[in-house]
């Protein structure tokens, strides 16, 4: 399949910071690539280069068959950009915003007007169409922003953290819109720091950290690299933990179990799936261990991220390495919700933001490199 987005060796430095440190990307037509990484990993910089907003210091990029550096204006005809911060004019109404973008896409006044009406209806904004965007909720603004990006139905779309800061309901709604778009054949490059989002929307995922793509594959492939499934048991009382652990260790595949005292939770890597679960329950019952919860857990992309980078995907500075270490455990779960970040907080980071956020010690860094090596071997075999 031909590539709709292709990048080779993209480098961009802001002063001392290498925001992009040799990024290669290849997105076949009609597919979705999720660019996954923490704040400051270089995701936004990559999008800005590919959408002609920023000139890279090195490398080349081709979007919709056109060289981004040589013919930026040609590229602009074929792309839609929906940003992290809904870029709509808040003093214009929804309708005026869309008509303006249509006119700037060189549509005739009549076409721009028609197109605006169609899009407003599709994005459930007809009722609010003649109110200024200032009065819109966050979710409505995002929808308007997305509609603005779709004014000419570009074959290639870029979405930079489309759901950052949205509440769960609005996020779900936006996801549906994106899925619909992709079903219609649009190629999409999506950046996100929410693993759940990449998991749901992307065919392929490229994990980015420190300006480099450190792993790439489908969600399942990435998860497979992290290791198999695990059984999680929550016992009724703390006193039961030692017995329960002994039982579980018997079923484990030798990877070592993990006990969390305060949540009364034991996690152990297993193979054997659901059948095993029944056996474990029987055995626990036989040893009179009362349990509150038991479940089979497949690795999430959180786990993937943690094992690849040595730090969690959305925890705050320094917390990742301490909490999780090399263990793809619950440490990665903290702070992945959209609610934990505010739009304004992230605002300052649009430009050369690479220096902020991720303080991975030298140890973790070595860990990362080792993991990359392992990945490459894994991919080759």
């Amino acid at each position, binding site marked *: 399949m031909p590539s709709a987005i292709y990048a080779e060796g993209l480098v961009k430095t802001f002063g001392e910071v290498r925001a992009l440190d040799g990024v290669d990307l290849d997105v076949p037509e009609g597919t979705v690539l999720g660019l996954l990484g923490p704040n400051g990993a270089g995701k936004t910089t990559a999008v800005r280069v590919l959408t002609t907003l920023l000139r890279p210091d090195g490398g080349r990029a081709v979007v919709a068959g056109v060289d981004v550096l040589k013919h930026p204006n040609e590229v602009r005809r074929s792309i839609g950009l929906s940003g992290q911060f809904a870029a709509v004019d808040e003093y214009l109404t929804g309708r005026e915003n869309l008509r303006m973008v249509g006119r700037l896409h060189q549509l005739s006044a009549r076409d721009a007007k028609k197109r605006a009406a169609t899009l407003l209806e*599709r994005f459930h904004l007809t009722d609010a169409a003649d109110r200024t965007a200032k009065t819109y909720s966050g979710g409505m603004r995002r929808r308007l922003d997305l509609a603005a990006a779709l004014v000419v139905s570009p074959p290639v779309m870029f979405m930079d953290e489309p759901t950052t800061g949205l509440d769960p309901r609005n996020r779900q709604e936006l996801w549906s819109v994106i899925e619909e778009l992709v079903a219609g054949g649009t190629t999409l490059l999506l950046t996100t720091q929410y693993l759940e989002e990449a998991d749901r929307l992307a065919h392929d995922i490229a994990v980015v950290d420190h300006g480099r793509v450190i792993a790439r594959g489908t969600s399942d492939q990435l998860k497979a690299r992290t290791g198999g499934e695990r059984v999680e048991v929550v016992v009724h009382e703390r006193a039961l933990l030692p017995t329960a652990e002994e039982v579980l260790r018997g079923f484990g595949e030798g990877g070592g179990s993990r006990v969390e005292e305060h949540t009364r939770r034991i996690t152990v890597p297993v193979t054997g799936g659901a059948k095993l679960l029944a056996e474990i329950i029987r055995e626990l019952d036989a040893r009179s261990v009362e349990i509150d919860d038991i479940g089979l857990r497949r690795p999430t992309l959180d786990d993937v991220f943690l094992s690849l980078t040595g730090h969690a995907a959305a925890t705050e500075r320094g917390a990742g390495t301490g909490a999780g270490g090399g263990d793809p455990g619950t440490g990665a779960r903290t702070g992945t919700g959209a609610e934990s970040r505010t739009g304004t907080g992230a605002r300052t980071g649009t430009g050369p933001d690479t220096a902020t956020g991720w303080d991975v010690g030298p140890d973790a860094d070595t860990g990362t490199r080792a993991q990359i090596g392992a990945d490459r071997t894994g991919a080759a075999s």
Partner: protein
Amino acid sequence: MTTDDGAVLAPATPRAKGGFGQAVSDSLVMAQRNLIRMLRIPEVVIFGLIQPIMFVVLFSYVFGGSIELPGAGTDADAYREFLMGGIFAQTVTFATAGAGAGIAEDMDKGLIDRFRSLPMTRGAVLTGRTLADLVQTALTLVVLALVALLVGWRTHENLLKVLGGFGLLLLLGYAFTWIGALIGLSVRSPEAATSGGLVWLFPLTFLSNAFVPSQNMPSALRHVAEWNPFSATVQASRELFGNIPPGYPTADAWPMQHPVLASLLWSIVIIAVFRTLAVRRYKSATG
């Protein structure tokens, strides 16, 4: 969201355009956008009027009668007429701050990124903004002229010359909005653009012939004032309005001898230089 209707995905075909026609239409779309904004935030326009009106009243009644005009002595009425060219010119230059703040806000809100990702003419975002500011400046001048008439300002030349005087004032204001555009693209916030657009305007407009005759200044200052681009327009509008008292000695400096030509030249040079710089800056702007 249903998937049966292909409307979202149906391509709308852009008309193939380019060149000058597209530059004009893009600029007009952007100007329209900025004018709508001004209508929706009328406070900005209203506050923009208060200061020059205050200046008209304060200068007329506080300084009128105590500032000596060569050729007219301390005649308060003569000073009032003399003053208006200065106030008009100062008022049009204040559009600088508005243009700068508007563009800085667009940068800040990510709108510049959106525009830069569209296949539109590069300079249109800035041209549209400066054109909208020009409209606002014209409205401000109309209101200000009415207030000036109320306090006793009169013109003593034919209509064509008077209109020419206002034309030069507007051109100066337009030129200064390009300075504002460059400031707006260079600073990090709308607030910085506002103050960055104003701080240098005060010395520039006071180190001129706007409020006091340059003849009364110490010689070093007098040279600065007489070659100040701003002074040329003040002098030109006074001349075209017929507001120079008979017997008022014209300074020897070339721009004071040929104020209309000097005013035109200065404005054109400012536009040429600052438009080039601003458009270049826009192309490489990172939000």
